[in-house]
């Protein structure tokens, strides 16, 4: 079955994280796109074209949570895995108000990330890919 792959955008300023998550998701059949900051994401105009997001809270200028808030307000929010090295209670509380968002602390179990995205994102008009695909 050659279903269209779900597109996931990885927003993290650490190149190593970007790379490893990309590799991870690619291995599980996701199409990925990486940006290094919230601003880059917004500039990239991904509205509507992505199915999921892996978001680091700590970003250079606008923080991850602000981005998420903005997207939610715009109605452009997609299922998001928020990753962070810190466990900030305030942020967690805020996250609870979003839909389809989970919080994973680094170092996270990769399978949880994959499972969540697999579960929650559908490719635009397509079914979610199964785990057998790779790329």
């Amino acid at each position, binding site marked *: 079955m050659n279903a269209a792959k779900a597109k996931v955008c990885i927003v993290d300023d650490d190149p*190593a*994280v970007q790379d490893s998550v990309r590799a*991870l998701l690619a291995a599980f059949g996701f199409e990925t796109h990486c940006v290094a900051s919230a601003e880059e994401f917004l500039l990239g105009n991904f509205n509507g074209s992505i199915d999921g997001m892996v978001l680091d809270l700590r970003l250079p200028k606008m923080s991850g949570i602000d981005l998420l808030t903005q997207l939610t307000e715009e109605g452009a929010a997609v299922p998001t895995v928020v990753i962070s*090295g810190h466990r900030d209670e305030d942020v967690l509380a805020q996250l609870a108000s979003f839909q389809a968002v989970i919080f994973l602390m680094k*170092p996270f179990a990769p399978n949880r990330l994959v499972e969540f995205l697999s579960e929650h994102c559908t490719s635009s008009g397509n079914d979610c890919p199964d785990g057998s695909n790779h790329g």
Partner: protein
Amino acid sequence: MINEALTAPRSAYSRLLIISFAGLLLLASTYCVHLFLRVDSATRTNNRRVPSVGRLVDLRSRTHDAVQELFAYVISGDEAEKRDFESWTADYQQISQSFLHQSALDEASRVQFDRVLKHQRDIADSGNRMIDRYDQTGVVDPIDFHALEHDVDQFGQVISVLQNQLEIDLAKSQLETALVWNRTRTESIVLGVVFAVLSSTLLVLLLRRFHAYDQLRDEAMTSILESNRRFRLIFDSEPQCVKLVDREGRLVDINPAGLRMLEADREEVLGKCIFDVIVGEDRERFVEATQAVLRGESNSLEFEIVGLKGQHRVMTTRQVPIRYGSDEFLHVLSITEDITEKRRIEKQLKDHRDKLAHASRVNLLGELVSSIAHELNQPLSAATNYAFVLEKLASETPVQTAAIREHAGQVRGQAQRAAEIVRGVRRLLKPSPGDNQATDIHQLIESSLGIMGPDLRAHAVDLDTRLHAESLTVFGHQVQLQQVLMNLFQNAIQAMDQVEPNRRTLTIDTASTPDHIEIRVKDTGNGIESDDTQDVFRTFFTTKPEGMGMGLAVARSIVEAHQGSLVVEQSTSRGTVFLVVLPLSGESADECCESKSLHC
């Protein structure tokens, strides 16, 4: 107060004056005696002369009586008359002698009286002859008769003269006496007045003098009592313990404050040895200090006591020696303060400071740990992801060897990165305060730049160093300070990755104020866009695959541990300036060797 000079009161007349008056009085008394003697002698003379005439008359009449008796005998032949006459002849000398003795005649009168006596003798002789002849013949011889008559006449004349003389003398002495009396009367009145005046004046002088001295004594007494009372009041009111101790350490006196500290009544402690209340460890020191004071030194010391009811107090005392006029120091006066509370508060403060320091350290450590955790998280996260992928790849067929190799390499790479971080942490954690030394900032900068040379070139960053003319020294941890610098340099380099290569300049500027060193690390990046430039110290927005990997939070902690500060001085779209302020050390630095620098 008690020390006012006690001068003689003005109303007390001088001793000289009083003595003069007493002297005058004595003179007056002497004159009085003189007067008395004068009167006495006059009276005595008078008294002697008064009876003289009478006696002389008596003598004359006896003599005449004797003659009459003789005549009566020769006329009548009466034996009785003869006997009378004969008794007169026997007695007349004695009588005359007695007269002489009693009358105290002067020379002329004596001579005259001798004549009288002679004539009496003549009369006696004549009379006796007559009697003899009569007895023999029974007839009076006219010769004897004429002889007798002659003697009697003679006697009469002489004794008249004497009598006159005596009468004149008597009159004279009586007149004289009257005069003396008169004079003396006047003089004695004067003397009496003088005496009265002198006495009363003297009495007044003495009385006033006594009164004045009485008053003075009363004033002195009052003054002494007042002074004593005042001292006692001070002594009793003094909130600190004031006590007097003798040479053996026995308590001579102690004020109520001191009694409270001893938790005792006066009777319980007076006379007892004060050393007994001092705790064992401090006692010897205290005894020595007391001995030193008795030798003449003043000193102060701190010690602990146990009151009679068991309460412990920490005391501090100042001691001075006391002597009361003699050469030897008899007592020790000490003022002792209870500083138990003060010490307790000091200890509490110290505990708080220690806790705060500990908390700061913990904070620093906490920050350190959190930054380490975060730094390690990155490679661990990445490695985990790659490993997960590897697992998946390994379970697939056909085996994608290339992919597997690639991902395995990446896992290794991330592990290495983690290892570097750990190494960096170890280096950071190794040093101790003893590692602080005088560090030359310029040398540190140059060695850091030396390490980072490749990075600068790789990122096409131009370098502009504007170092202060004189060398600047910080007393601190060389390795840590170098880390801070390199962290800042790294940040600057990476901040400029966003701009065109030909516009990347890293400027390092050092300056000095009287007390501090200022290091400015300027980049030409796009600045920090954040409402609060403090964010940059929390956000690790430049995680570095190479280099130390220590965040700005740690850098700031290090700088603050050196009593300095790390702030964003400026952040515009044209670049950012980080300012490091460190306290200037006066010492000069040792050679900051390259060999000590870090290998990363």
